[in-house]
């Protein structure tokens, strides 16, 4: 079934590419591929010892590390075009391996108004939320192969959902944008819910500093509710000792996230392609409450969960040659959760905390360094090193990654 999907997707892409190449009339700009088709191919070779564990956090969906050795990342097919003079539409299909099977995911499929006027824009469908700075960027536009730890911990990578977004651009000579989103609210850190409980607010402010520098500041908030959010207890031991199947379910949860972000870019002579320094930092804090229900065969432990987790990353990326960049990143996340016992059978608080590691209040830190070679805007080869510290544990990760963009390559957002 998946193979069929894949074949169809590729056939679709081939048809579009060949037609548009033939139908070249040498007219118009930007949309001579109609719709614009972009295929991102991404693969890596990864070397590490231990899987990513984030004690103190209930792990979200795409939080695992890539398979050791050779593996493909996200192959991403994006089709986009102006629908008419009122709407712009874009869809991104991501083809990726999860647990050994190839899956096609619809990462984004949205429509956006072009002509509401008065600075207003309405977006609807499935889209990456505009909270934070990195969240709305596609993975291939990131400066490191992986998401910052705080993103992995809070959103299971990035937050995307089905719903609507309304935003407004202030009529000023500087950039001021405010927006709100109303979504299903069931993607992590949400879960199954009755209503459409995802609500986000964001504000972005930005301007230039002379001819060479520019900045953007943002603040955002996201809240959702869930009836049930399931996850596995942290499995440790890696098969050395046979574990009983355990399950952790959070019920009747409330999630509130706030965040701030800042970006500063400096390009001598206003020539970012030649030389550019980008400084970027984000901070998020999540507060959530739920009824936690942990079970292991017939035994269980039930408690009121009151969690507070926060973290940040700071990074600097320097392009020192049109084809070469290097970057450093520092990550830190800290959990602080409380559980008050309600009911138990055969498991006590201590055992529960040991099994799930949700009682940890140790800060997890990570240092990353990368070097990338970009022969053109369409290709990139990157070498990255991560060093992760948690209490007594540490782990190193090396990855060499290629990211290639075929077909139409849209502009990257700021």
């Amino acid at each position, binding site marked *: 079934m998946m193979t069929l999907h894949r074949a169809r997707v590729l056939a679709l892409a081939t048809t579009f590419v060949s037609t548009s190449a033939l139908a070249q009339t040498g007219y118009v700009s930007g*949309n001579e591929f109609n719709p614009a088709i972009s295929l991102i191919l991404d693969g890596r070779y990864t070397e590490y010892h231990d899987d990513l564990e984030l004690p103190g956090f209930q792990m979200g969906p795409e939080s695992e590390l890539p398979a050791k050795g050779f593996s493909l990342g996200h192959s991403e097919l994006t089709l986009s075009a102006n629908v008419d*003079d009122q709407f712009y539409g874009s869809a991104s299909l991501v083809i990726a391996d999860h647990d050994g099977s190839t899956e096609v995911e619809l990462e984004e499929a949205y429509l956006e108004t072009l002509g509401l006027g008065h600075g207003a824009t309405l977006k609807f469908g499935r889209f990456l939320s505009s909270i934070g700075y990195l969240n709305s960027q596609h993975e291939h536009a990131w400066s490191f192969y992986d998401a910052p730890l705080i993103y992995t911990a809070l959103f299971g990578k990035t937050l995307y959902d089905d719903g609507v977004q309304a935003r407004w651009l202030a009529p000023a000579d500087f*950039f001021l944008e405010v927006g709100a989103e109303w979504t299903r609210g069931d993607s992590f850190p949400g879960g199954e819910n009755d209503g459409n409980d995802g609500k986000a607010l964001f504000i*972005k402010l930005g301007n230039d500093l002379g*001819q060479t520098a520019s900045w953007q500041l943002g603040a955002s908030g996201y809240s959702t509710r869930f009836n049930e959010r399931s996850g596995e207890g942290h499995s440790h031991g890696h098969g050395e000792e046979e574990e009983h199947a355990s399950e952790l379910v959070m019920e009747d949860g409330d999630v509130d996230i706030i965040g701030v972000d800042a970006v500063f870019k400096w390009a001598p002579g206003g020539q970012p*392609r030649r030389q550019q320094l980008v400084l970027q930092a984000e901070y998020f804090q999540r507060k959530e409450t739920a009824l936690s229900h942990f079970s292991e065969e017939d035994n269980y432990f039930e408690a009121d969960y009151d969690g507070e987790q926060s973290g940040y990353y700071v990074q600097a990326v320097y392009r020192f040659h049109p084809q070469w960049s290097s970057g450093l990143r520092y990550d830190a996340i800290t959990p602080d959760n409380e559980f008050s016992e309600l009911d138990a059978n055969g498991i006590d608080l201590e055992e529960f905390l040991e099994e799930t590691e949700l009682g940890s209040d140790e800060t997890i830190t990570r240092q990353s360094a990368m070097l990338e070679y970009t022969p053109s805007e369409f290709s990139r080869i990157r070498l990255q090193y991560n060093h992760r510290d948690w209490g007594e544990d540490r782990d190193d990760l090396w990855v060499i990654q290629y990211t290639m963009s075929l077909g139409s390559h849209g502009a990257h957002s700021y």
Partner: protein
Amino acid sequence: MRQTLIIIITLLTPILARGELSVFACEPEWAALTQQLGGDRVSVFSATTAMQDPHHVEARPSLIARLGRADLAVCTGAELEVGWLPLLLRRSANAKVQMHQPGYFEAAMQVERLGIPTVLDRADGDVHAAGNPHVHLDPRRLLRIAEALSQRLIELDPAGRTEYAGRLQQFQDHWHARISQWESEAAPLRNRRIVVQHEDWLYFNEWLQLEQVATIEPKPGVPPSAADQKRLLQTLSAQPPELIILAAYQDDKAARWLADKLNIPVVTLPFTVGGDEHSNSLTALFDRSLALLLQALGD
């Protein structure tokens, strides 16, 4: 009382409704041209300077804000701005300036373009399907663009019809005279062999009949490697060109190296308005470019 009110309103009107057409120009040449054709009826913002490579501009928040307030966007088109303008357009939330609206003007589309590739392949570098976009360096084409742009200004601001028409007439008269003058001045440049950094002198060369024998970039938009440089030097050694031309925004390292080896001069031309201290208008841009070339190639 009523009279006072009328007086206040009359006084406020020019402030409240200045009637100025707000123009977002992607490059300085279009800012200059729009200003010349629009006079006081337009207020013009240039998204880039002559020292910036218009192919590679960051879609900065400030540009989104500026485009959001524009009544008219005047850009080169032909995919020159494909790396940043489409994003600005979408983020600007401005219905007036979207593609195919009267508030969106592409200069390159008003004239016949050269260098339209027969095969589109990224292996050939940064190729533009609609042809070479650097049309502003041919003053004859610039004249046709001015005519179309003036029409567009009238369409968007009909109240200014007489003024726009008058300013266009003025520009045409002036420009016709200058073109003849430039062409006669530039006669010694005919068939002179030059090397350029990037394929952005195509229209200029065609106009002045300069013979471009090579580009330093092995492929459009691809910086030359050391091996590319050596290969080019070898090719050119047999029959060296007389001059290397650079645009003000380009890195001169490769050109200097080659010029040194071939013992020929490098001339950095302003390329657009503001490219050096002399080129503060379209007329001055051509005056200055010709003067620099004639000086460098003076026998």
